[in-house]
């Protein structure tokens, strides 16, 4: 099975972020980067499918030069090769532009399965995988918790709301977006890190893939959440006040 896993490099989760000069993204100088956490589960799932059914795992990203290190991490964990669509435009890009870059590279190769994380830790669109499926003209399913690829088709467990699940069957090839936390992500072994250096690593510029610069979405402004304090006195009898308080805790503060 030829499995493509889309991974994104994002700023580390506990980074101290501040808006850049244009107010459209966060300053990334001096910030450390890591693989988008939801994508680590997709990668792990791909590696497990390969261990069960054989084939190849290809890690792919659309991102600036620095995101090569995230692909290197995927190789160290066991991906067989990597593809980097390199461009600074993918730092602030919208889900469509990213999906377009990924699709242009994946389309060139045989693929049985494309996996993505459910969403990214930075922009959090949750759309890249879905748009990518449309561009590749693949059937897709989201929020996948289990994949059974033992038959010719893909039998998958999807998470719905309120503890409900759906079991669906898709033909191959297909695209699945993977729910976080469904597996225990492996560490890169030290031997794996050393082997990664010798694995195939393909770079594309957007031009090589014939991608223009479509912008469907633009960030107008980005700012720190404003802290504010508000005091409200609840009036009425003790019972009325208790009822109002309960209402507020439940529906405004959402702590109950």
């Amino acid at each position, binding site marked *: 099975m030829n499995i493509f896993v889309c991974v994104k490099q994002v700023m*580390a989760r*506990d980074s101290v972020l501040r808006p850049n000069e244009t107010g459209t993204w966060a300053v990334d100088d*001096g910030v*450390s980067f890591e693989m988008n956490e939801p994508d680590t589960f997709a990668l792990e799932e791909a590696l497990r499918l390969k261990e069960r059914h054989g084939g190849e795992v290809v890690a792919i990203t659309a991102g600036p030069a620095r995101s*090569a*290190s995230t692909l*290197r*991490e995927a190789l*160290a964990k066991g991906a067989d090769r990597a593809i980097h669509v390199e461009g600074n435009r993918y730092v602030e890009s919208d889900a469509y532009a990213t999906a377009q870059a990924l699709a242009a590279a994946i389309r060139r190769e045989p693929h049985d399965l494309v996996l993505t994380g459910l969403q990214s830790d930075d922009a959090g669109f949750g759309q890249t995988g879905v748009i990518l499926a449309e561009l590749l003209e693949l059937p897709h399913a989201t929020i996948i918790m289990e994949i059974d690829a033992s038959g010719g088709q893909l039998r998958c467990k999807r998470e719905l709301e309120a503890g409900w699940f759906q079991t669906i069957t898709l033909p191959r090839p297909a695209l699945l977006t993977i729910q976080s936390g469904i597996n225990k992500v492996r*560490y*890169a*072994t*030290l*031997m*794996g*890190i*050393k082997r*990664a*250096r010798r694995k195939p690593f393909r770079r594309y510029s957007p031009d090589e893939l014939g991608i223009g610069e479509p912008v469907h979405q633009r960030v107008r402004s980005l700012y720190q959440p404003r802290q504010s304090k508000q005091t409200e006195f609840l009036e009425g009898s003790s019972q009325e006040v208790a009822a109002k308080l309960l209402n507020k805790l439940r529906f405004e503060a959402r702590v109950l």
Partner: protein
Amino acid sequence: MFEFRGVDFMEFDSLLSEEELLVRQTARQFVEDRFIPLITRHFREGTFPEELTAPIAELGFFGANLDGYGCAGLSNVEYGLVMQEMERGDTALRSFVSVQGSLSMYAVHSYGSDEQKARWLPRMQQGKAMGCFALTEPNFGSNPGGMITRAVPDGDGYVVNGEKTWITNGSVADIAVIWAKVGDSDRIQGFLVETDRPGFTAVDLHNKLSMRASTTSAVGLSNVRIPAENVLPGAKGLKAALGCLTNARLGIAWGAIGAAMACYDCARQYAILRTQFDDRPIASHQLVQAELADMITEITKAQFITLHATRLKDRGRSHHAHVSMIKRGNAAMALDVARRARDLLGANGITDEYPIFRHMCNLETVKTYEGTHNIHTLVLGSHVTGIHAFT
């Protein structure tokens, strides 16, 4: 307390390659996920979490900077970063990995025959055979050349008699690197001694107040008969034994930085969260800030000098006095940071709810093992004056 994300005041990471960062990430995540949740109980009970031996081996930590035999072949900088992260967890973890790789496997790798290497190194890398390194004796610590353990030629082999102590992993080892004088000469030689040979005993030393999660043993050799093929052919003279120690000592220098980082990071977070006097964080007080400023300055200095010394080693430009300098300096620095960090936590600083006191106790050992602070002072003194002052 939050997840440990490292200590980097002056863009230290910008000097590290992609691979070096990945190696550190693996070690850091392993320690955070698998080791930190266990260490408090093991330190209390005086035990090592032996169930971690298999994952430690699988991830490639044993003999990680050696080439071949299934070893990862890390550079010394990469290996140093691993040691730093291990000791950020606990000195016992770093020592466990370091005695296996930098002392025992290194001795076989550097001084062993091809047969010895093929027989032992793959199994040691996989954690299926554990090693220990026995040089120190009850009456010969800083002066190992005075050792009285002897290997007397007998037929086609040797008979070994003597006593070794402070041997990390002595009782868990399958194979011991034993240093002994040959016949009635003063010539020191390294031997491989399987620990199941009759006459070999290892008794654990209990009641330690430091490195409690590390197995430390006294090793007895009473008429232990070994064949001639157990001689480590290249391990001739005290110099060979000291070569192993110089190699392992580099890991100690890095490890001490890890322990210091753990203490600093804990104290910094604590100082920001803990409030006193009008509900202000104690980090807003000048005396507390002075402590944190001193700590981060010393840690940062240690990081850069240690990285430089290790890059020299990777380029084949390292001198053993360089290693003495960073081992001595970093251990003393880390102990000082630990004591200051403990102060910032007040009474909480003495409990094992926080890692600081545990590190502080461990660092008392780090200061005096693999060459005491004072012995390294004399190494440096001798290096800069050309005059030995050991006796």
